[in-house]
């Protein structure tokens, strides 16, 4: 991943998205490609995408803001997504989430003071038969309790 502090240039953004221009309905794949590259949708992407796809800037902005996945601000070094949906709740997911947030000293969408972890809610990971579940940087974990969650977080904060 590139240095997130440094805003990419128009040319760099073009380089990431242009190979996808031939797709039918290319905007979501382009946004995913940008976020995979920069960890967020860079501010400078809106005019580039609008120009490339012949859309208004407001329209591109509207698409970005519609989806929970796309963000315009950086995350911590790791992203922990805790499932808030019903099956996880039935196995104590609410208490686990509350304890985890408290321990990290953040609220939903918040990032720990050391910049290590951002915590986000997620609604079902398809791990509902081994709840409660979470995903840490794309790695899934099931049947969590405070102890396992603690070990998991210790791993990434070390």
């Amino acid at each position, binding site marked *: 991943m590139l240095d997130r502090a440094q805003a990419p240039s128009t040319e760099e953004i073009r380089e990431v998205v242009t190979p996808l221009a031939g797709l039918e309905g290319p905007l979501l794949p382009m946004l995913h490609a940008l976020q995979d590259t920069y960890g967020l949708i860079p501010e400078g992407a809106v005019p580039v995408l609008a120009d490339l796809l012949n859309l208004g800037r407001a329209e591109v902005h509207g698409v970005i803001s519609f989806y929970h996945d*796309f963000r315009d601000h950086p995350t911590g070094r790791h992203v922990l997504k805790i499932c808030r949906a019903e099956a996880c709740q039935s196995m104590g997911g609410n208490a686990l989430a509350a304890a985890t947030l408290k321990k990290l000293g953040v609220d939903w969408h918040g990032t720990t003071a050391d910049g290590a972890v951002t915590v986000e809610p997620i609604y*079902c990971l398809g791990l509902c038969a*081994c709840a409660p579940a979470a995903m840490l940087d794309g790695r899934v974990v099931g049947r969590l309790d405070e102890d396992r969650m603690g070990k998991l977080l210790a791993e990434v904060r070390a």
Partner: protein
Amino acid sequence: MKIYVPMDSAATALGADEVAKALAREIAARGLDAQIIRNGTRGMIWLEPLVEIDRGDGRMGYGPVTPADVPAILDGSAQSLGPVEEIPFFANQTRLTFARCGVIDPLDLDDYAAHGGLAGLTRAIAMSSAEIVQEVADSGLRGRGGAGFPTGIKWKTVAEADADQKYIVCNADEGDSGTFADRMIMEGDPFTLIEGMAIAGLGVGATRGYVYLRSEYPDAIRVMRAAVKIARQRGVLGADVLGSGRAFDMEIRQGAGAYVCGEETSLLNSLEGKRGVVRAKPPLPALEGFLGRPTVVNNVISLATVPVIFEKGAQHYADFGLGRSRGTVTLQIAGNVKHGGLYETAFGLTLGEVVNGIGGGTATGRPVKAVQVGGPLGAYMPVSKFDTPVGYEEFDKNGGLIGHAGLVVFDDSADMLQMARFAMEFCAVESCGKCTPCRIGAVRGVETIDRIAAGDPGAADLLTDLCETMKDGSLCALGGFTPFPVMSALTQFPDDFVCQKEAAE
């Protein structure tokens, strides 16, 4: 010796990768002649990681396995579950759609073909478009994504539409809590979905397909992309599908974390690169779908069931089931349950048989209080409704819906007022914003439930009125069906709404 360690994400979430690594280390250290195969899951999630060892006399199961168990398993001294296919949870199923899931290496196309794969597509290639559509109609297959619409009728509409380009779009947004059948088949037997989409393409005259796959499933995305590549290399997809002279190709597209994009018209907008706002119907997607072209939108399980219908014949499939619910239902037993997992069986078992008989009751050992069937828009079924048979019409008659056939079990510690509140909160977070009763109503719903909790005597009637408004004034089932979980909680578990009030007084 062959050793199977699932790569399904439920298994890896419980440590299957660590077990596979420990096995590889130990095999090397002992100089054993053994091959580790990463299969899909059998669906017995409480036994995951479930390791299977075939020493030439069938597949013996061990589970749940930790890395520390590995030496004893290789010694043959560990306690075995016996032959995996004789475990009652597995043996009692009718596995049609999931016949290969957990059995084969998901990305081994030869293994796939050796277990009946491609037989359906081969048969379909020899049939006319009309015959293919008729076969699906005769099977009685109804959409497994939620609405239960007859798949044959949908295909017929698209087949008869005149257009230079038609599409097959697979709905793999699987956002409902308690459901994971789509994920499991995409990770465990991806070629089944590809084959089903190819048959659909031949049937309706579509040469292009898309799988809209939620971003919450990175493992499924990886497996599906790899499978599409292999299928293309081997001529299952492309300009000349299995030498038929007819074309079909497909792409995997990643969603972006919006629940409402599981609704088919919202999904199509999203696929086109727009905001995932629900479209008014008509026009039907079958006539004006993706990019305004005739489009089949079907759920993963609907499409993944097509190959076995063609392999074994429509009648074979239709012979299973109850009333107008034909074939098998892929139950996903989840939440606070002892034996959670995927259970494929003919329609017709009662809810109680599923929860208590197959599921074994709660994981905590406490009494069952409620079961939410059909995801976040499904009703909370109390134990008094446990004699309801699993069938579309049967559930409807009892105030419930089957949806994508996920069941979330709750024990007696569940607070149904909080569950009702969550349903409203979820609707507020996920609303596409098009209708006021959904967008604003859901926010009011949360506030009203908080007032009930605070002891406001008139708030329950207000909530009931609000639910009526949402039901009548919402364009899609997000706003229109959120009243199901809310009102079922309020009417079936009134104590949870009263106690709070008294406690506040």
